[in-house]
């Protein structure tokens, strides 16, 4: 257990727990109270937590297995689309065209029946499973081909980018049956609860926080396991690991698939809180931004990735609201600064400061590297 929850993980989970308990309480307080949180902020914070899950997912495969995926946004969006499809079905006959069988955009396109791949999405459990299964299956197939032919490093990054770009183009097409350019939106409720009700928002927020904690623990469990050690070996010396008899591709495919499913989970929680999913989520730039969250927080630290996502997204919200022109400058500078001067991210910086304050360690006692 102590291997699973070290100091950093413990602190983060404790903070997350406190926030998760306090936010619902604060939001039910009287509006006049100084501590009250307006209801509209809750989905926003839920959105940040979704990004944190996404960052943890990427850190698992980039930080520990050295697979720099520039297409994690695609898995995120696919998970989002799966839940979005279910939410679309839940609208039922309350859409603009009041068609009980077809979503609005299909009526608008003049379609007469539901495409086969929409079957089953009426049923929530099916959609929920699909939100994990579709990204997972795509990652498995993609990874199986890629890792078996030893595509790695930069080449892998480029083809994952091509993958999300291809999906971006595909989902823009109306003929695909996913709402084209506009995506899926106008959701009303989930499992019968209205999405605009404060209680639903709080429930989703708490659920997201739990999911984040779960993802962190799962990722940690993977990395401290024996398989996790092999993954680190793959990251640091792929050929050597192979020569020692490990099937590198199996480990890589495994971690890539798990990571993609986490990203899908993040997307699935994201869509009901944000209320829209459109092809823009597939944009390659989005996927690259995830990388900077992880890099800023500290690659290969899991907790750091989550913190990095929260910090960057919070700064982004603030900057785009107050100095919209500055945001891209700041993000661009962040990329450069992190890469040049903070190779271990924020957590690395904290670690460095902590070590500096302490007296030099006794050379006789073994210090962790």
């Amino acid at each position, binding site marked *: 257990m102590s291997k699973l929850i070290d100091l950093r993980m413990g602190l983060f989970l404790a903070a997350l727990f406190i926030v998760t308990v306090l936010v619902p309480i604060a939001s039910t307080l009287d509006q006049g109270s100084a501590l009250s949180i307006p209801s509209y902020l809750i989905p926003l914070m839920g959105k940040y937590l979704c990004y944190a899950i996404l960052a943890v997912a990427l850190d698992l495969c980039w930080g520990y297995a050295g697979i720099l995926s520039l297409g994690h946004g695609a898995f995120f969006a696919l998970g989002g689309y799966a839940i979005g499809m279910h939410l679309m079905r839940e609208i039922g006959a309350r859409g603009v065209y009041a068609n009980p069988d077809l979503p609005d955009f299909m009526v608008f396109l003049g379609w007469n029946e539901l495409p086969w791949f929409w079957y089953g999405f009426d049923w929530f459990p099916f959609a929920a499973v699909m939100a994990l299964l579709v990204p997972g299956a795509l990652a498995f197939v993609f990874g199986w081909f890629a890792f078996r032919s030893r595509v790695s*490093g930069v080449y892998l990054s480029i083809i994952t980018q091509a*993958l999300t770009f291809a999906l971006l183009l595909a989902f823009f097409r109306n003929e695909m049956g996913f709402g084209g350019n506009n995506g899926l939106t106008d959701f009303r409720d989930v499992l019968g609860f209205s999405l605009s009700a404060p209680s639903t928002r709080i429930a989703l927020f708490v659920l997201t926080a739990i999911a984040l904690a779960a993802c962190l623990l799962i990722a940690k469990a993977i990395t401290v396991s024996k398989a996790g050690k092999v993954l680190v070996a793959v990251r640091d010396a792929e050929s050597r690991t192979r020569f020692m008899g490990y099937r590198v591709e199996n480990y890589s495919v495994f971690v890539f698939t798990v990571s993609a499913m986490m990203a899908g989970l993040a997307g699935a929680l994201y869509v009901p809180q944000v209320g829209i999913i459109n092809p823009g989520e597939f944009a390659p730039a989005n996927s690259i931004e995830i990388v900077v969250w992880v890099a800023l927080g500290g690659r290969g630290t899991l907790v750091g990735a989550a913190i990095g996502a929260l910090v960057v997204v919070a700064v982004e919200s603030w900057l785009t609201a107050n100095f919209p022109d500055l945001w*891209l400058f700041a993000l661009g500078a962040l990329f450069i600064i992190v*890469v040049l001067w903070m190779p271990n991210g924020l957590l690395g910086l904290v670690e460095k400061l902590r070590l500096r304050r302490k007296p030099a360690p006794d050379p006789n006692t073994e210090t962790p590297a």
Partner: protein
Amino acid sequence: MLLRPFLRLVALCLAMLTPLAASAQTLEELVTQLPAGSYDDRAAVVAEIAATGDPRALAVLEALLEGELEQRNSDGRIVIVGGTRRAPTGTDALTGEDLGELGRRATERIRVNNSLRRTIRTAMGVMTLRDPDPARRLAAAEAALRSPAVEQLDALDAAMQAEELDYIREAQTLAHAATILASDADTDTKLDAVAVISGASALTVQSTLNAYRAAEDPALAAAVADAIEAAERRQALWGQAQNLWFGLSLGSVLLLAAIGLAITFGVMGVINLAHGELVMLGAYTTFLVQETIRTHAPEYFGWSLAIAVPLAFLFVGAVGVAIERGIVRHLYGRPLETLLATWGVSLILQQAVRSVFGPTNREVGTPDWMSGAFQLGEMTVTWPRVAIVIFSLTVFFGLLLTMRYSAMGLQMRAVTQNRAMAANLGIRTGRVDALTFGLGAGIAGLAGVALSQIDNVSPNLGQSYIIDSFLVVVFGGVGNLWGTLAAAMSLGVANKFLEPWAGAVLGKILILIFIILFIQKRPRGLFPQRGRAAEG
């Protein structure tokens, strides 16, 4: 109902076939008759006016067609009205005498309706067939081909006899043949006409002969069907040629965008995600050069691209050197970190350009000498495409020669193959790195100049090319310039051949999927580098 147009036709024919009878009335008399009577009366007068053969008649008919021919209320004079609606001015329709301002209600328009307009056009067509200006003669012949009118047959015949310019006579011959088909000539004559038409361009054959597919005469119908089928075959063949050409020109664009990357990524192994933005800077350099020329020396606008090419190369190359010295230099051997840092650079460049020039598209003009098109067989070739193909091949071979034969190219290859050995031999590796990166960036700038001619110059210009260019380089084989050429051209051509049946977007998706699968199969591209250096 049917009788009226028929009568008008007869009148027109009579008017043309009996020039003596028609010329009994002079143009002056005829023109004064225009305002009176019904549209049919007017049509008869128009035919007679055309039959006078008077050179002044054309202007009158043209004004009538445009609704600019009016009658002055005070003295019944026929005038051509110009100027503005508020302050119309007039000139005498026949003498061209300037009548000054007319006053708003001083004249009455001579009205025309659609069938009268048709009559007027035919009449004008007949007149312009003999116009002294060759361009107008050609236009008249082409108009006659598009809408063959039996009454023009003799006029066409006469025009063909008199014509001295071959290309106009060809057009007239076609029009003549089309008119024969429309007439009630005998089958043999019509078969000859079909034979004449089947030698024309496929589009002409189809548009002219389609109406006669169901001709009553079986021999004629068969000949028409044969001719159309032959034309369609020819067109399909040329359609493939057209696809090939479009593909090559798209390939040239890809080549231009990717070739700079082939240097930075292929030769140096640096993932430069800011490459697209360097292309964009090149395009904006072109914009600035054109702006400066427009304001200071508009007469040199035709030279703007020639001036922009070296400037873009130097400016973007300098930006590239700055990026290399400032950032990339610290990251050699860490490709993923380089990728992130250069992505940061690309965001900054994008936003900088957006702040300075605004987020909207900027207008970059095409010099006159580059616009226009020419006809090659059944396909239209536009000059900008030709220019881009030539330009990108020039850049490619220029780069190839630089790498192979110049001292700098030799040093570049030495440094990339064995850095330590090169340093030992006295090559300043840092300087070579900077120059190599600068060269790649400068070529991106050149690509920007070319792309400004065919794409929107906006801060997002680069983003649309970056993924494509990386795929081209990876597909072709990293470190191999010939591979880049082959990859760009084959992807361009494949894209254009997929487009007709898959659509532009789906075609692109298929290409992406193909490349993804291809890289799985052959991770080192089409033409992998051999030897120890290639072991990653």
